[in-house]
């Protein structure tokens, strides 16, 4: 996707040897664990919905030919997947596009935000404008580290360019909209469930080992390995995003 980078600089590193780790079918600490291997034990409706998600990737309908390279490069940095073999990457962008094409919202719009479709269009413009001001190139043409530098400025709530856009739209809320949509697409996919060792659907069968983090007979135990984020990235560190008291970052999902 990215023009000036070779794949190796995009790979996570072995912390001891500082060498890139090989790409895998299934990263994470649960090797061999497959939620889809249990699908005969799921109810028919759930099985159909999850199989459809894996097997039927929606085509791009919302983003324009100009927007597509930018948002595609952005998604590749917000949920980087270069540790996955190419055929086992999760199509995050297509699911964001699908939501926008269908105009599916989650029940509200912040009063200081435009409509979510406009928010994406404006945000893509702002990201590309920031890339051009900072590096004199469009966002997809930047090196991965430069792309992360641009995205980190938005994460931090710093407005390096496109001030007229950030006047119409809260930079912090745009960041949260973007990251939320990316992670909602990625972690809805059964391959991501395998990666994190999540048990997935369990009706009608049930979970039976509830305490102590014990695996069900069909789950597997954790086998950890150490890894560092690629040197071409800025995202393998945790810093609070730039939300201020005027735009408090707070949870969107229902938990209680």
């Amino acid at each position: 996707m990215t023009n000036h980078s070779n794949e190796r600089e995009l790979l996570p590193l072995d912390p001891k040897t500082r060498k890139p780790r090989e790409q895998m079918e299934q990263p994470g600490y649960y090797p061999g664990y497959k939620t889809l291997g249990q699908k005969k034990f799921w109810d028919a409706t759930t099985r159909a919905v999850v199989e459809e998600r894996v097997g039927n990737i929606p085509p791009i309908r919302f983003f324009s030919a100009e927007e597509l390279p930018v948002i595609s490069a952005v998604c590749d940095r917000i949920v980087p997947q270069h540790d996955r073999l190419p055929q086992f990457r999760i199509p995050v962008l297509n699911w964001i596009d699908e939501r926008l094409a269908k105009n599916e919202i989650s029940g509200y719009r912040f009063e200081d935000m435009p409509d979510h479709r406009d928010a994406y269009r404006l945000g893509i413009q702002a990201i590309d404008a920031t890339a051009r001001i900072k590096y004199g190139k469009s966002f997809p043409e930047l090196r991965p580290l430069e792309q992360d530098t641009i995205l980190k400025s938005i994460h931090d709530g710093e407005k390096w360019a496109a001030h007229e856009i950030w006047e119409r739209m809260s930079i912090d809320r745009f960041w949260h909209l973007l990251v939320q949509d990316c992670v909602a697409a990625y972690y809805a996919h059964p391959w991501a469930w395998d990666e994190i060792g999540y048990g997935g659907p369990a009706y009608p069968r049930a979970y039976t080992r509830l305490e102590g983090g014990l695996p069900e007979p069909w789950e597997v135990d954790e086998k950890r390995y150490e890894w560092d984020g690629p040197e071409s990235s800025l995202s393998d560190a945790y810093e609070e995003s730039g939300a201020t008291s005027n735009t408090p970052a707070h949870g969107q999902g229902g938990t209680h």
Partner: protein
Amino acid sequence: MKSPIWGEFKQARDDVHNLGPLQRIGKETKRYRDDEEVDYCIVGLGSAGGVLLQRLAKAGFQVLGLEAGPFWDTERDWVSDEKGSHKLYWNDLRITGGTDPLALGENNSGKGVGGGSVHWAAFTPRFHPSDFRVYTQDGVGADWPISYDELKPYYELLEREIPVAGPAYFPWGDPHGYPYGPHPLGGVGDVLVKGCTKLGIRVCAGGPVAILSGSHGDRPHCIYRGFCIQGCKVGAKASTLITHIPEAIRYGAEVRALSMASRISMRNREQANGVFYFDREGREHFQRAKAVIVSGYAIETPRLLLNSACQGHENGLANSSGTLGRYLMAQAGNVVLGRFPGLIRMYKTPPAHALTEEFYETDPKRDFARGFAIQTVAPLPVAFAKQMMVAKGAWGWGMRRVMMDYNHWATLGVLGEILPWPDNRVELAEERDGFGLRVAKVTFNLHDNDKKLIEFGKNKVMQVMHAAGAEEVVQEARYAHLVGACRMGADQGTSVVDKFGRTHDVSNLFVCDGSVLPTQGSANPGLTIQCLAARTADYLIAQGTRIFTSEIRDMGTPPVRRELAVKDSFTKGVPRLR
């Protein structure tokens, strides 16, 4: 095990309407003609509307429920999947603002028969006696026009009806026990119990939750699959969809789904005569009714009343006090996330299964009024990733890394009392929905007492998390539940409805849902809303046809009609001896 012994699980029968794996009703149900005048038209079939529909039908009234969303078939429509459950929520546009804007939709609003009770986590603590006299006791908020004692018989009744699993002795508020035994703990409950025990905080394990720990009638017990807030396909978690709606239909009530109420129609200045609504094709209809009950919850109820402004009620129906839409409340719902060296696997067991109310009451040693509860929560991967986006500022490789540790994290929630303030409110925005109706604009601002309470509560939960052995503790600010905005009160000048839910301004128009709550305590509101609905139903039944014709308001307490409880309330399930 490669496959279930009889092969993969097949799709459920489609010639019946499935309400859980065992409970079925016929597909054909009663349908009133538009020009038939029903006794009661209930707008919204959620926690309150479901109970009202069942009670009024069982007592012999002609009753019809309008519901904006679908009439779910739980086997065919619901899934064990976060993304696939998005349709359970009220996803239509609302505008949210103020200094501390609330997330809506999946956070707190349901759509479809059963309403929010379909996706509640089903914690069912009672309110404490002190919740009913907050103003008298603490000089803040408001008093209720009823006391705890007036609601207590309904708590006892509904805890059997839906029914509630929990400890034999629950020590806080008015101490009591539960009809079904407590649930086994999962990893998160262990964390709460361990942390609290270490700090000398009393804690309650295994409930109270409206989730079956043993089978009950045609409802199986919990299988601990963790998808409570995605809709319980198992039928173990109570929702009015499976507890009250089936019996309502059996007694002749009509459930009219995919029908979006647009305004309440007035016969004259004093009396309503029906409800205008849009059907699924967007055609407008008028349903005649002798009385109307609005049960649309804390946003849609005031929105409908505001959208029903008419001659003589220019500021919205039932709004002579100017308080319609005001005193909206959400509870502080900060989530505290702790990473443990060992595995937790918090996706197993219901998210709701242990709590403490040790900090519920006002403590003069603290610098704020009222208090909070600490409860287990357990986000599934998508919700957890969103929490990590906020709590750790995670994205990119950092997001991938923390998510690979999903099974090491446990989450606890603050459930804190935010006081009723007039500037927290529901109004009409200029934007319109697909039917051309003005959408709600919700404004929410934290005040000084609220901020101090949240700070204290959050820090206390972080302490508990550390005490349980977490090596890293982070938190995310958020809010849970929505109540208020049509509050009940004795004074017509400062409230919208009286203590039975009758609007002060229109004698045959009632509001019955979370919006009538004057204050909210630190208890999840679902059970209290169902209790208020059963009590309003008893009042309407006791008053009989006088409701439809007379302006006179009898404020006497009606008898508790235990015989109207749903079947199996007293005869099925796990016996608990007194």
